[in-house]
């Protein structure tokens, strides 16, 4: 595994009595697309703000590009791109003025790349930002975060409220970075559909706590959907089931559950012990989306807004 480009240890953030983020410990390896998933209000934006030194952690530490987040300076920030859902842009500027304004801050600014992005995004250089649609504004923000070819791109809910075409352009734009020798994309979202095939690492946060942080490959290795017919004597699900069985359901004699620690021998042994006389189970691999939904139901959060 590549060395982490983001690494947090016991990160906490309190607002008055509210613990917005609790004991967050995770690492993002360089060269990955890390999807930071959770419902609205889970603590994603607070975490990102702490990573980028926009907000101080109450306790705990974060290291970005090897540097403690609380001392991140121009040198590091010039290698980090950041686009957020609620980004405020200087609305009175034109797209071109915004570009001219940003360029001097970044030694690695690539004019040709910037031109290419403007063209691909169909951005009118001389239109004022305040006269642009939301999608256009987000694309303008992305251009000024990509043009210096950052080593790390941080995106906070970048797709919310974008129409499918703009979303598509946005994804193509961010994938331009894959041409570089070093790139990492950290992307927060409440919607798994947006990142399903893009992410090779996933972190799931809910109510300020991180429930997992691991490669999608390992998630797909350990999660399985299990379905079988219970014997006629089984009238309801046993009171105690293994803790690693998620969302068990029974309808008629049909039983379905999600095994989150799949090891064939052990899973089968558990099934035989708890459901004697049941049919041979159908055990199927799951997509990232199905895994996320099973987790979401387990944590009792929905992919809708909690607020």
């Amino acid at each position, binding site marked *: 595994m590549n060395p982490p480009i983001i690494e947090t240890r016991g990160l906490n953030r309190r607002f008055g009595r509210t613990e917005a983020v609790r004991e967050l410990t995770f690492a993002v390896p360089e060269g990955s697309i890390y999807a930071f998933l959770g419902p609205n209000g889970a603590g994603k934006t607070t975490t990102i703000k702490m990573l980028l030194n926009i907000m101080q952690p109450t306790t705990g530490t974060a290291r970005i590009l090897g540097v403690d987040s609380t001392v991140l300076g121009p040198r590091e920030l010039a290698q980090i791109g950041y686009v957020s859902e609620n980004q405020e842009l200087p609305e009175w500027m034109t797209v071109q003025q915004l570009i001219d304004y940003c360029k001097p801050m970044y030694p690695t600014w690539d004019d040709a790349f910037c031109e290419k992005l403007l063209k691909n995004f169909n951005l009118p250089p001389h239109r004022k930002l305040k006269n642009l649609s939301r999608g256009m504004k987000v694309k303008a923000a992305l251009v000024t975060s990509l043009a210096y070819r950052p080593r790390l791109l941080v995106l906070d809910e970048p797709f919310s409220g974008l129409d499918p075409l703009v979303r598509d352009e946005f994804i193509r734009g961010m994938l331009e970075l894959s041409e570089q020798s070093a790139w990492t994309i950290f992307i927060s979202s409440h919607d798994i559909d947006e990142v399903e*095939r893009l*992410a090779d690492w996933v972190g799931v946060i809910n109510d300020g706590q991180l429930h997992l942080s691991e490669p999608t490959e390992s998630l797909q290795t350990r999660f399985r959907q299990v379905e079988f017919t219970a014997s006629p004597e089984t009238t309801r699900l046993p009171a105690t089931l293994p803790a690693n069985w998620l969302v068990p359901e029974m309808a008629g004699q049909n039983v379905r559950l999600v095994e989150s620690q799949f090891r064939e021998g052990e899973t089968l042994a558990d099934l035989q012990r708890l459901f004697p006389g049941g049919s041979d189970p159908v055990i199927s691999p799951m997509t990232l*989306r199905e895994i996320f939904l099973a987790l979401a139901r387990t944590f009792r959060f929905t992919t809708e807004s909690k607020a």
Partner: protein
Amino acid sequence: MLPFRIELKTGSPVSEQLVYAVTKAVISGLMRTGDKFPSVRTLSQELRINPNTAHKVITALIGQGLLEVRPGIGTIVGKNPKATPQQRSELLGEDLEHLVVEAKKLRLDVGDVTRAVEQHWNKLS
């Protein structure tokens, strides 16, 4: 646009589907020796997949000799992608399985399926 046809389905790994689609395109002649093959960036952008997945697929295809690296040009379809009859028939495997499953659902027997295949075959030749 990509020089081969692929429609990603959920349920099986993207990398496997991609290797299959490229192999099929080369063996069936849709892509020919010397044709330029899309870069990691293009593959990931066109399919909205992780660039590391695209990279893995290209590396695997180079390993199989289906693609070759040409310094200064990029990746091209290899010199010797001649398929053995076995490889060709293997490529039909997935489609055949689908056909058999559908036929069984409809309670057809193997004779019905063979006749239907023959009819289609003659229509197209």
